[in-house]
């Protein structure tokens, strides 16, 4: 609970400081029926023109010891800056979702682990830049070694 409170506060500080960052939530946070079956929703905070931002997502996973990657379709919701990610990766193996965003001169990134019950909020990582390959690998390794809820 302390970690969640700290993470939430960090996000709030970043947003208030004007930094471009991502915030993730359950599908209902998108307030749109279209997101009902999404794996999770997210929003781009601190972007002065959300409609002009470029958001991409990919799934990185380990399935039976083999590394897998797949590009995901990011669904923009009616509210500007709010998006949803739908599961198109397999049920087998362990996966993390890698978000990347560009808003003018600023960039943002996030790594969202996926567990048996959905996205693992407490283990998600947020950056003011795209996540590095090493950071993605580290998250996957942590997930495989038992870091899920």
């Amino acid at each position, binding site marked *: 609970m302390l970690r969640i*409170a700290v993470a*939430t506060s960090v996000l709030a500080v970043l947003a208030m400081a004007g930094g471009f960052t991502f915030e993730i939530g*359950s599908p*209902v946070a998108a307030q749109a029926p279209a997101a*009902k079956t999404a794996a999770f929703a997210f929003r781009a905070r601190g972007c002065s023109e959300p409609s002009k931002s470029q958001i991409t997502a990919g799934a990185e996973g380990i399935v039976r010891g083999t590394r897998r990657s797949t590009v995901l379709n990011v669904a923009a919701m009616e509210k500007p800056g709010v998006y949803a990610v739908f599961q198109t990766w397999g049920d087998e193996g362990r996966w993390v979702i890698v978000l990347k965003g560009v808003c003018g001169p600023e960039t943002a990134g996030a790594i969202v682990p996926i567990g048996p019950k959905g996205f693992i909020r407490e283990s998600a990582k947020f950056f003011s830049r795209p996540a590095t390959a090493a950071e993605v690998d580290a998250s996957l390794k942590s997930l495989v070694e038992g870091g899920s809820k």
Partner: protein
Amino acid sequence: MRIFNRHVSDRLAAYVEGAIDANLVRRHLAQCERCRAEYADVQKGMAALENLPVVEAPASVWNSIESVLDAPKRPTFNPWKFGFALSSAVIVASFAYWIVMRSGAPWDVDGLSGSPVVGTRHISRAGRVAPGEWIETDARSSARIKIGHIGSVVLAPNTRARVVATRPQENRIALAHGEIHAEISAPPRLFFVDTASGTAVDLGCEYSLYAEEDGSGLMRVTRGWVSFQRNGRESLVPAGASCRTRTHAGPGTPYFDDASDILKRALDTFDETSSLDALGAILSASRVRDTLTLWHLLSRVSAADRGRVYDRIAVLTPVPAGVSRDRVLSLDRETLTRWKDELAWTW
């Protein structure tokens, strides 16, 4: 002056046969050379016919004549009867259409196990249930109702429900007792479930709803978001959360299923008794995610206690800009909605 200025060509054959009054024709013939010439030709033709040999007609000719004579007589067309029949058919069809459109068309029902009952009919594999009809399962039976094109509802054993409406803009079931599992893929507010303690309004979701005869029960949402309403009291229940229902109080305060047992027990007590001790326990045991419960409590506690709830939420998660303490304590609708939309990102 000629008595007859019309020729009698068309009456000459009958005149020869003696089939008509001869006086008129005779007087005309006395004055008309043309008709006298035609009369002479007709007489020659009639004489020639009498000298022709008699020949037996082939049997096929007579048979065809007999078959026509034996065929049922085609009724004569009566425009008044036809008009009456057509009008009656139109009236009956229109009434039937009005009845169907007023309540809707029947839904398909699949028997999943045992022998569910629809109305007074036992169904084994497939059937239909119309608006106004009851569908019931016993301890060994279950059924799935196909809700038009928007989803399905599974009736667990020992469940009794009535189909209220099956219209495109209103698909409604009344749950008397038992448990249903609804899975709906449609725009919000098209599917409703009435119970004695309130109405579940689908907002695009999948959920289970259990109800006792007196209306008390439990709703658990597994996907999407459901609104449970009664007499102006509303509980918004997102995926991963549940909400108890009570006969005289309507929808209870929603909570996440992974909330602590302490919070759940305290919430149960508070919803029943409004105990201040229970409220204190809820506030102490609440996490960031439990702001779902706390937000609902804002409008369910007394004005004197509302500040405690506000303060607890503010400790757990930053209060967004535009959400002032005064407006929250006064239950300003717009402020509460804005705060809920922000809190949802932590649920």
